[in-house]
Structure formats: structure tokens, C-alpha cells
């Protein structure tokens, strides 16, 4: 089933790209405790990506496993949302990006646990637990930074303003979503918008940050049209297996 493979690929790629971004903080976090915490989040996301992508490969039935999909696809074959491929920037940029994603993922996995595809429901149930913790952390940091010092407030607001235009895609459905809804496997992305906005608006208010107005929203990641940022990320991530396809460890 082509649509289902595509659908699963989207969740896997989003988890994978955010994992790769988050992992780049290791040894660069502001404090050692945060370094370990970020590594934990990245490892959770890598684990989720593996489960989604192995399943995507099985559905495709062309002999590709998660590793093959991760290391041997070009940017245009990636189906992650644009939000997660945005560069790490400063610590506030990373935390705000994480918070926007986590708040969405918590809702998405909540819906998918009711999927009539047992495998999808099981992966979602596992991911939902991890995501609940990621969200708790990223929301906590959003409030700390927003309601922190003058500098941290300024950076957090700047991150919110910069990343806002990538949040619209999270709630934008296409024919793949429609088909998954019709056969009881997936959910309508639009239905997550209100609960997401409620959670995000409340957190932004607590953080004394201003919610941006509804302006132009970027789109296309789910269909394989990415920003140039993803190309650099993939180049670094894939260079070894691409240069030495037979390499093992």
C-alpha cells in the first residue's frame, strides 16, 4: 500500500532529522547536565525513527531497512516536516523548535495509538511516552528562557518569530493523509491545530512571549520539497556509508 508507506515514512523522517539535529548538541550544551539530557532526547528520537523506518521499508517490500533508507536517500526523497530540519541556531532556537515539534508529536502519537494498524498503534504508544517527557522538558525550557533574563527573553522571542512559519505545515493534510483517515489508519492533521494552539499559546503566555500572528506558512517537507538546510545535514550524516557502502562495524 503506497500511501501507508509514505505516511509512515513521514513520521520516521521527522523523528530522524530532529534526532540528528539534537545530537549535534552533544559536547556543546551550556552545561554538562543538559548535554546528557539532549543526548537522551536524541537517542529516543533515533529509536522512534528506526521503528518507523523499518516498518516503512517492510511496507515498501523492496528490501530496504531503516539504515538503507536513512543513508541512501537524497533530500528530495525525505518526507520530514520543514520545522525539524531548521538549523540548531542558539539554545533558544533549539528549544523552541523542539517545543513546537513535541507539542505536535504528543497529539499526533495520541491519535495514532488508536490506529487500526496494530504496528502503527504500537510504535505510537511507545513514542508517546517518550514524547511526553520531551515536551515537559522543552516546555519547561521555553518558560525559563522566555521568563528569564533580558537576553534569554530576546532570543526566545526571536526563535518563536523565526520558526513560526514552519508550524503551519504540521496541520496541513494532503491526499496521503486523506487516504489514511478514510481507512482508519491515520488522523486528520487539521484536527490537531486547535489543541496545539491552546497548549502553545498557554506556554508562550507563561513565558511572557508574544504569539506571532497567522502569516505566510512554509510547506512542502512532507512532499519532499525541502529547504537547503536539509542537504547539509544529510551530507554530513551520509558521507561515510555513501563513500564506503560496504563499511561495517
Amino acid at each position: 500500500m503506497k500511501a501507508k508507506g509514505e505516511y509512515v515514512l513521514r513520521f520516521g523522517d521527522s523523528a530522524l532529522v530532529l534526532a540528528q539535529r539534537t545530537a549535534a548538541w552533544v559536547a556543546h550544551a551550556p552545561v554538562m547536565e543538559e548535554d546528557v539530557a539532549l543526548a537522551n532526547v536524541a537517542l529516543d528520537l533515533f529509536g522512534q525513527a528506526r521503528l518507523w523506518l523499518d516498518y516503512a521499508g517492510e511496507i515498501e517490500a523492496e528490501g530496504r531497512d531503516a539504515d538503507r533508507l536513512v543513508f541512501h536517500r537524497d533530500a528530495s526523497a525525505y518526507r520530514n516536516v520543514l520545522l525539524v530540519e531548521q538549523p540548531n541556531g542558539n539554545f533558544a532556537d533549539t528549544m523552541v523548535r523542539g517545543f513546537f515539534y513535541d507539542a505536535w508529536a504528543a497529539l499526533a502519537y495520541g491519535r495514532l495509538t488508536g490506529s487500526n494498524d496494530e504496528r502503527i498503534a504500537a510504535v505510537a504508544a511507545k513514542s508517546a511516552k517518550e514524547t511526553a517527557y520531551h515536551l515537559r522538558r522543552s516546555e519547561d525550557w521555553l518558560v525559563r528562557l522566555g521568563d528569564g533574563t533580558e537576553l534569554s527573553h530576546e532570543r526566545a522571542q526571536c526563535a518563536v518569530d523565526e520558526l513560526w512559519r514552519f508550524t503551519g505545515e504540521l496541520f496541513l493534510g494532503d491526499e496521503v493523509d486523506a487516504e489514511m483517515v478514510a481507512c482508519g489508519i491515520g488522523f486528520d492533521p487539521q484536527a490537531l491545530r486547535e489543541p496545539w494552539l491552546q497548549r502553545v499559546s498557554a506556554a508562550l503566555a507563561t513565558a511572557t512571549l508574544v504569539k506571532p500572528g497567522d502569516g505566510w506558512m512554509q510547506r512542502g517537507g512532507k512532499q519532499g520539497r525541502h529547504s537547503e538546510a536539509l542537504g547539509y545535514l544529510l551530507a554530513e550524516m551520509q558521507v561515510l556509508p555513501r563513500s564506503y557502502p560496504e563499511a561495517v562495524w
Partner: protein
Amino acid sequence: MSTDWPLWEIFVRSENGLAHKHVGSLHAADAEMAVQNARDLYTRRNEGVSIWVVRSTDIVATDPAQSEALFDPSEDKSYRQATFYHVPEGVKNL
């Protein structure tokens, strides 16, 4: 930056029914962050079911200079140990 944050002592209960045990310390801006950092630093390999965090400065400790007065007197009182007593033969339900 880490030095700006206070130090916290972390106690983890490995399973229900057991007591919390001191596992180490970490830096955090406040109690909530200390709990989250403790979760990530000390329970990532399934070590615990409960975490306590205590500001290191809130712990009142014994003075090492007084350890003779405090602890040595119990050294020669072996009758305070259960193993000091012989159980008479034939006693059941002890």
C-alpha cells in the same frame, strides 16, 4: 555557567519497598530542573522508580573532627549485634 547553579544531592529508589539511596550530585537552577536532570543522569538505564533531590547546602552533616566521639564507642559493644547471641538448640519461632 554550571558554577552559577547550586548543587543538588540526588537520591534514587531503585524499586518500591526499598529506601532511597544517595547516587550523586548535579547542578540545576531550581528543584524542578534538578529532578529532570536527575532523571536524565541517574535513571536512564532503568535504575529507579522515585527520585528525591535536596539542596546540598540543606544537608546537615556530622563533623569529621568529632567522629571519634560519635562512632568509636560502638566498636567494642559487640553485644549490640544480633550475631553476638547464640540461639539455643531446639528454639523454634525466634
